[in-house]
């Protein structure tokens, strides 16, 4: 018996009950499409985080305070620490060190108000260190910091929220009811998936401490190394200086933490990886549920047709041609459903989902497609194989 004959039987079997075939296909379609799409969303978030972190600059160290261990007192990070780190003799690998305080604040202009998630106080070197280009206007100057002038450079999101369709530079905004003059607008850095990097505002350190945060510990010291190669040396020098100033002995636990962009990237990537795994798990469950649906329909299809199998065997069909027919039917349904699912996922990936542009992972396409094909094959072949082994009379008597 030729393959084309078996194929013809299988095609007839699939088209004999169009609704059921369509529902089977739909189950696989949804499973495959959701796996590919959800993994693509997770991957898209991860890619955008990496891009935004890479945009911060490659030769930057971030020092942040760390809570003290029990029994020892933690010294806060101070402006003096930052000044000491910028010492060209003690720390030749450090180009600049910007003290940063961070808070959230409500900014208002006219009758529009907006909650700025990151309102920073720092010095002018911060802009260069963190690759924060000023698109309109100019950054504030060292003189602004020294004089404590109420000037601010706002992020792109803040600009569009407060000044829709208008030029913000030169305007006055109220930050927690204190008037600040907008001197510049930062170029957009885009969303990092979990956090909007443009929802920010940068003002002189002295002004922010005076008006908003008070004179407590710094949130961060952002250190720029002289070059990417000097990063390791800079990290060692920073650690030596801060250990000395904070009285941390050999083997003691530091009350601060130094992170390079690379380490930050790793940490953030780990976060989004968790996110991706979570999404993939949800998607896998949907594929599994789809698979169970397919199994169910395959079982019903085969059971319902045991008499037909008996008839075919009675007129001389071999076990292999029966098995071949049902395997082909299952394969056609799952391949068709899988192909439609891949197509649906590629169409879905053209849209932005929850603020994230999905980036399809090629291996997920293969995986989802293969899993769906295997589900169809396995759960189609098992009952078909059992039915094909029946003696003809047993199959014919089946109710």
């Amino acid at each position, binding site marked *: *018996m*030729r393959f084309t*004959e078996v194929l013809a*039987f299988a095609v*007839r079997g699939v088209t*004999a009950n169009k609704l059921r075939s369509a529902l089977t296909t739909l189950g696989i379609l949804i499973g495959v499409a959701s796996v590919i799409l959800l993994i693509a969303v997770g991957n898209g978030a991860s890619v955008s985080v990496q891009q935004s972190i890479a945009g911060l600059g490659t030769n930057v160290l971030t020092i942040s305070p760390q809570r003290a261990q029990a029994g020892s007192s933690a010294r806060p990070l101070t402006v003096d620490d930052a000044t000491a780190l910028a010492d060209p003799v003690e720390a030749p690998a450090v180009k600049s060190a910007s003290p940063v305080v961070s808070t959230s604040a409500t900014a208002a202009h006219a009758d529009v108000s907006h909650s700025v998630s990151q309102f920073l106080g720092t010095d002018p070197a911060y802009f260069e260190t963190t690759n924060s280009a000023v698109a309109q206007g100019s950054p504030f100057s060292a003189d602004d910091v020294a004089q404590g002038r109420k000037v601010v450079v706002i992020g792109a999101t803040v600009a569009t929220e407060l000044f829709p369709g208008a030029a913000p530079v030169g305007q006055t905004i109220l930050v927690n009811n204190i008037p600040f003059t907008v001197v510049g607008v930062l170029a957009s850095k885009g969303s990092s998936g979990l956090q909007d990097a443009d929802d920010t505002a940068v003002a002189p350190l002295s002004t922010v401490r005076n008006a908003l945060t008070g004179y407590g510990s710094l949130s961060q010291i952002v250190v720029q190394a002289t070059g990417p190669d000097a990063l390791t040396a800079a990290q060692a020098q920073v650690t030596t200086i801060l250990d000395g100033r904070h009285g941390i002995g050999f083997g003691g636990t530091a009350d601060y933490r130094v992170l390079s962009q690379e380490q930050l990237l790793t940490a953030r990537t780990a976060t989004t990886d968790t996110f991706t795994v979570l999404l993939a798990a949800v998607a896998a469950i949907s594929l599994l549920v789809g698979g169970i649906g397919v199994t169910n329909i395959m079982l019903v299809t085969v059971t319902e047709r045991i*008499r*037909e199998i*008996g*008839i*075919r*065997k*009675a*007129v*001389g*069909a*071999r*076990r292999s*041609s029966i098995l071949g027919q049902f395997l082909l039917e299952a394969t056609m349904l799952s391949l068709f459903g899988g192909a439609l699912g891949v197509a649906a996922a590629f169409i879905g990936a053209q849209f932005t989902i929850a603020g994230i542009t999905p980036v399809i992972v090629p291996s997920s396409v293969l995986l989802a497609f293969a899993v769906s094909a295997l589900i169809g094959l396995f759960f189609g072949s098992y009952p078909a194989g059992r039915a094909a082994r029946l*003696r*003809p*009379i047993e199959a*014919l008597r089946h109710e």
Partner: protein
Amino acid sequence: MTPAIEVRDLRKTYGSGDTAVHALRGLDLTVDRGEYLAIMGASGSGKSTLLNVLGCLDVPTSGRYLLDGIDTAEFGEAQLGLLRNRKIGFVFQSFNLIPRTTALANVELPLVYAGVRRAERRLRANAALRLVGLAERAHHRPNELSGGQQQRVAIARALVTGPAIVLADEPTGNLDTRSSQEVMGILDRLHASGRTVVLITHEDDVAAHANRVVRVVDGRIVENRFTGVLA
């Protein structure tokens, strides 16, 4: 000449232990080529089991079954399939046509499994349908045919491969008188053309078509009566 069918001490038991049902208890039967045999008996007498074994649809628990002098016990599953396909045409009481499939495709089915090419298949299937008087119904599905027509399609399917033996399990059991007469007329013609025909029936007027009638009681043959001229 080798008999078409030779059965020796045939036993078939369903289940085991106390609940075992003995459908056939050491049955002997010889059917010569060209014979027209009717098997009669009450329901539960084992006559259907006998016919299923003769048609290679079921295997006996013990005993020998020689088909054309060949012992079927030596045959594997694939060879039994070949045997059913080439040597035996089986007609069921409940027709057993494949639903949602045209009469022509149903008749072609044995030829597909025999590996016959499409063009020749069509030719032979149409010829078989003409023989049972259903040429113009070739493209109807079973649910568009009457019971008598369905049974005639089933007979066409049984004879399309040109088998030497036609087995019919109560072929008129589900049919009205007129359809029964048509079906029996076709079986008579098959016998007249030299085929061995074995059928099961409850009805005496159906059995009257045969040359010989055997009566099965409790899995054994108790009566063997020649009614017509021996072929």
